């Protein structure tokens, strides 16, 4: 493999697929898959923290391919499973968190959709969304992303509350790391980063006006749990084809010493660092050899 820096993106690492994540493609990787990925990548290159990756890419010091691990959404099982696996390889990861999930104020809206699929609540949601333009035969997932608005999210929340018990809602919130869990990751040297307050698609036209507010709310709420300088703003629901044309301009206007973290399914190049951008590659749930083929194809 040619010397380069690849950041692999995961969400949850767990043996369990909960109703909240079951309906989301790629939401969970089993621990053995992460273990195999780490072992394979450490054979062909070097596992590094995100900070070291930035430092080496900036200085051109890439003696071998470098790989870093990033876990979005701040799920609790990352500490339970990913932390010890990466520790065995002497490397730390990065985790991006949403403040309202950490503080148990709100559940990830896509998890609500997944839970509704589990309890046959989607039929109710479909009828509620008709007034917002939903039609029979449409994909509910795609519709809620393409037409995401406060009214649509409100409809999702109402149906979710109607279809679940308080105990189920409390259990669903427990899927996300709390402050103690994040402190433990931070203590182990992990990078805890800003993923907005509530995971709305702030990189798309529908919510771009909330970009700064959502990141600011997360920074205010979580304070010193988050990486200080530089800051890392991890864009939620990042769909490269649907990014707002004004995204980079809006990000630039926020000023400050920070990086914008995108999915993009590509490697981060030195030019990207100059633009304060980091790109990540979605880790496929497959064996090590297949993973290498995916990375080499980027």
């Amino acid at each position, binding site marked *: 493999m040619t010397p380069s820096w690849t950041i692999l993106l995961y969400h949850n690492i767990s043996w369990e*697929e909960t109703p909240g994540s079951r309906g989301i493609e790629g939401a969970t990787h089993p621990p053995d898959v992460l273990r195999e990925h780490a072992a394979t990548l450490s054979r062909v290159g070097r596992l590094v923290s995100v900070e070291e990756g930035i430092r080496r890419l900036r200085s051109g010091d890439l003696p071998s391919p470098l790989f870093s691990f990033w876990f979005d959404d701040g799920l609790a099982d990352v500490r339970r499973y990913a932390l010890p696996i990466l520790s065995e390889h002497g490397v730390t990861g990065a985790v991006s968190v949403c403040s309202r999930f950490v503080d148990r104020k709100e559940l990830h809206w896509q998890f609500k959709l997944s839970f509704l699929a589990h309890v046959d609540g989607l039929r109710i949601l479909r009828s509620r969304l008709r007034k917002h333009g939903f039609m029979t035969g449409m994909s509910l997932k795609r519709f809620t992303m393409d037409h995401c608005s406060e009214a649509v999210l409100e409809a999702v929340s109402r149906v979710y509350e109607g279809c679940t018990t308080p105990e189920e809602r409390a259990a669903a919130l427990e899927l996300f790391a709390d402050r103690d869990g994040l402190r433990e990751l931070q203590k182990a040297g992990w990078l805890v980063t800003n993923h907005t307050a509530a995971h709305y698609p702030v990189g798309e036209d529908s919510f771009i006006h909330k970009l700064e507010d959502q990141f600011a709310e997360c920074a205010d709420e979580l304070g010193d749990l988050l990486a200080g300088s530089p800051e890392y703003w991890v864009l939620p629901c990042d769909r490269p084809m649907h990014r707002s044309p004004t995204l980079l301009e809006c990000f630039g206007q926020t000023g400050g010493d920070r990086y914008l973290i995108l999915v993009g399914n590509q490697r981060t190049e030195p030019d990207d660092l100059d633009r304060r951008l980091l790109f990540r590659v979605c880790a496929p749930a497959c064996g090590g050899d297949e993973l290498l083929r995916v990375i080499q194809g980027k």
Partner: protein
Amino acid sequence: MIPRELTPRKITLPSPGDHPIVLITGGALRHLRFAYRIQQEFGQSVVGWYQVGGRRPGEGAGTRPTWMRRLALAAGDPLFAGMKWPDLKRYLSEHGVLTTARKAGKILFERLGPGAAFRRQRRMIAAERRIFGREIESIERGARLEPVVVDDPNDPDVVAAIRALRPYFLLTHGGPIYGKALLEVARGLAINQHSGWSPEFKGSNTTDWALYHRSLDHVGCTVHVPISAVDAGPILRRSRPCLVGDENPEAIFARVVALGTELMIDVVKEIIRDHEITVYDQPAHTGRTWLASELTGRILRSIERDYRDGWLREELQRVRSF
């Protein structure tokens, strides 16, 4: 995951100063992982580990030998199940002796043939090595205990030896049906890991049966309080495993088992912390208890066919597309 269809109730347990744990397991790699993970989490609280069958740890005990399975099938399952003499006469008159003999041979092979069971055993070992191998290398270094190998955990001498350890928890995974005398040695709670979705799928090979019925919703694991009826005691935890699209049924089973062990750890931690826990009583007469002898070569081949046809991958996609 909260079992929606079952009614919860709280049970309160004694709160002593210590919580000694005794493990009873089979001897396959998945059982070793169970024992090492429990030791990793609870350290010196684990005071005993009994392995049922085998001579050495991880020798593959706990899975019946293929010849024994075939013998059970031969004894318990007539060659032409459900076929009466008039049916056979009609078949003979319509198809002749040669075709009937060929058909009989085919059925005989289907029912008694070693192929599917042998292939399954081989794949099971490979799946467990692939999924658990690296993790076990890592966690066995920290394990303090090696198993005491016993033939029958219900033997009065074994029960007395376990009782002498004064366990608060008796954690079981694999092995035979545990008798009342053994289960009562736990001062706190006996807990069993069942690699199936209770109450619908109880007994043996329940992951296989869920796959045979193409019911991904019933591929899961149940941690429960053991009672005299198999896998029918009050449920403590039940959930579904994270599955990877192209894996075979044996890998799915290994993932179910891994999840069950983690659920068991959660339960034990909760009881040590709170000394009370929510249980969900299983309704009587719901679901089915499967016997080991019911899993014939024909059933296994049917599951294999679904796997080859990519059923799991398509089903996972279907679950996620809405």
